[in-house]
């Protein structure tokens, strides 16, 4: 069946095009005599930065550091076991509002486990066991209802995982499923629009709110997932390598978004990308084999790493 609104929208779009008979404008103009744009391999850049300690290049493109706000979450003496595997060993970290905490470290070092523990997702794994204390605004998170805790500290995953529903329904999901009554679409609309605007996606999807979310591009899908998390008005946002499945441009958009969001949220981001940690992180924690090796302000950690393992890792000696 053809939706009447959709068909009018389509005609409105087509009227912009030139009248019949003339060719439509090309999608991309090919200029022959312009200078070719050559992208420098980023790895060399990173190595150079790491080796010389000269970060002027990266620092230039970096947003200003955030202002540390109140401490929202505290991790003290946290250990996580999967069966006999001691995945996170006695880690203590503060998570403050107004700042981004970046967790870095080689694969399998426990940083994702740590992040999932903060959302209490590790509890879904039968073999997982946790020791130590995590507090949210001074309250032990174990004393909170798990759904309430997850609503207050939301999570964005490595792979964009929008639900197979429309864009609107995706963002409205948390709002709809929280109460016992399902609110009307009219009531939800301002919240959905607000969340999409905060995630910087609204302008791109404003006219397509009823389109399938899975047809958005990868970067849009990830921002939709962020909007979905923001719609529930969380106090903390955990991001598990949110850009690893995305192209550089989408990565850039999401990094700007993270910097924007840190004013109102406590953000923890796990990343494999050291430059990303340097760009968006206000504090960086380096983990290795489940240990928290070093924690400090980003500039200190990158310029003057105290531990030898940190120095080797950011120098590219292993990873």
């Amino acid at each position, binding site marked *: 069946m053809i939706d009447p609104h959709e068909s009018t929208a389509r005609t409105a779009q087509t009227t912009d095009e030139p009248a019949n008979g003339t060719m439509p404008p090309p999608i991309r103009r090919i200029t022959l005599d312009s200078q070719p744009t050559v992208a420098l391999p980023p790895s060399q850049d990173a190595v150079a930065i790491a080796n010389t300690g000269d970060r002027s290049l990266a620092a230039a493109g970096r947003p200003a550091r955030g202002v540390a706000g109140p401490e929202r979450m505290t991790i003290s003496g946290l250990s996580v076991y999967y069966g006999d595997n001691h995945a996170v060993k006695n880690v203590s970290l503060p998570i403050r509002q107004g700042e981004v905490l970046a967790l870095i470290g080689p694969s399998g070092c426990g940083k994702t486990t740590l992040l999932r523990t903060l*959302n209490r*997702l590790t509890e*879904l794994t*039968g073999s997982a066991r946790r020791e130590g204390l995590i507090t949210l605004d001074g309250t032990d998170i174990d004393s909170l209802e798990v*759904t*309430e*805790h*997850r*609503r*207050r500290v*939301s*999570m964005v*995953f490595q*792979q964009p*995982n*929008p*639900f*197979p*529903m*429309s864009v609107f329904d995706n963002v409205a*999901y*948390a709002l*709809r*499923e*929280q109460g016992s009554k399902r609110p009307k679409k009219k009531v939800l609309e301002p919240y959905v629009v607000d969340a999409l605007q905060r995630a910087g996606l609204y302008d791109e999807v404003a006219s397509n709110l009823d389109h*399938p*979310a*899975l*047809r958005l591009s990868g970067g849009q899908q990830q921002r939709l*997932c962020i909007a*979905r*998390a923001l719609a*529930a008005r969380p106090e903390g946002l955990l991001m598990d390598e949110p850009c690893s499945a995305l192209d550089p441009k989408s990565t850039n958009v999401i990094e700007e978004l993270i910097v924007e969001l840190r004013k109102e949220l406590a953000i923890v981001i796990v990343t494999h990308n050291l430059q990303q940690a340097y760009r968006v992180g206000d504090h960086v924690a380096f983990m290795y084999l489940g240990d928290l090796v070093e924690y400090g302000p980003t500039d200190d950690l990158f310029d003057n790493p105290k531990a030898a393992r940190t120095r080797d890792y950011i120098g590219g000696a292993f990873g």
Partner: protein
Amino acid sequence: MLNRLKEPWTDRRAGLLLGALACSVLAVIVFMLVFIAIKAWPSFANNGLSWFSSKGVVDQQLDAMVNSGANPSPAEYELGAWPLIYATLLTTFFATFFGLIFSLLSAIFIVEFAPERIRRVIVPVVRLLAAVPSVIYGLIGILVLAPFIGNSVITAEQKSSVQFVIPLSGTGLGVAIAVLTVMITPIMIAITVDGLHAIPRAWKEGALALGVNRWRAMWSVTVRAARPAIIAGAVLATARALGEAIMISMVAGSKGFSPNPLDGFVFFFEPVRTMAATVVENAESINAPAMQSSLYAMALVLLVGAFFLSLGSWIAKQPLKKYGTRS
């Protein structure tokens, strides 16, 4: 020539062979349909649309056919098959309806809530149950369930309330629905479990991470996304219920009778006979041309019914694809 055969198979050759196999299956089905339609024609031609109506007593009509000669008169073709169609619809609908509820809830339990140890036992057992021959269910139905209902559930008042219409003995619509439901539920559970397992974990985790509890996340994300698989399972089970003959013939009372919903709960105790059961029970009198044609007519109705069932499931799945992964 010999050398050519030694070479590895080309894709073209493999494609042709597989295509020929697929086409031959299709050809057999089409041939069957045409053959049955031709054989069924005398029954439809002599009755017209009243074949589908309820005229006369269907069991008497069938008995008359057995004794009709090699050249039956049009009157001997007379058949009003509505009670048989009605019985087929009733048993299939109720069995699918209850089966859908049981299988969905059991599948959700197995996938989401069952501890690993229980799951490891329950899934193979369910698959095994899906393969149990239906005659075993029929045996249990007629030896255990029907006597129990006949002796302990149906009251004397209920028996006397309909005694001038139909005697109640225990076998009937209710037992048929119950046994049929038990028979088709395992296959529905198996398909639904597979469908729910196929939903990406990331969707469920995404829902949980937003602070939705497991029960709500299950319904609003996993079951929602698995609807095509649930429909597929239901259709497979419905087709099995539609064509079930031996078991129904054992437990449904085997009377060409239309149960009356106005009788209240007695409705479920009244005996019925489905089309498939009728075909099986009259197979020995198949040499009487009138009977043969009537049975072929019922077979054709079942075949067309199964076709529309597939068509219906295809139509039902279309709107669900809109938000799915396939773009």
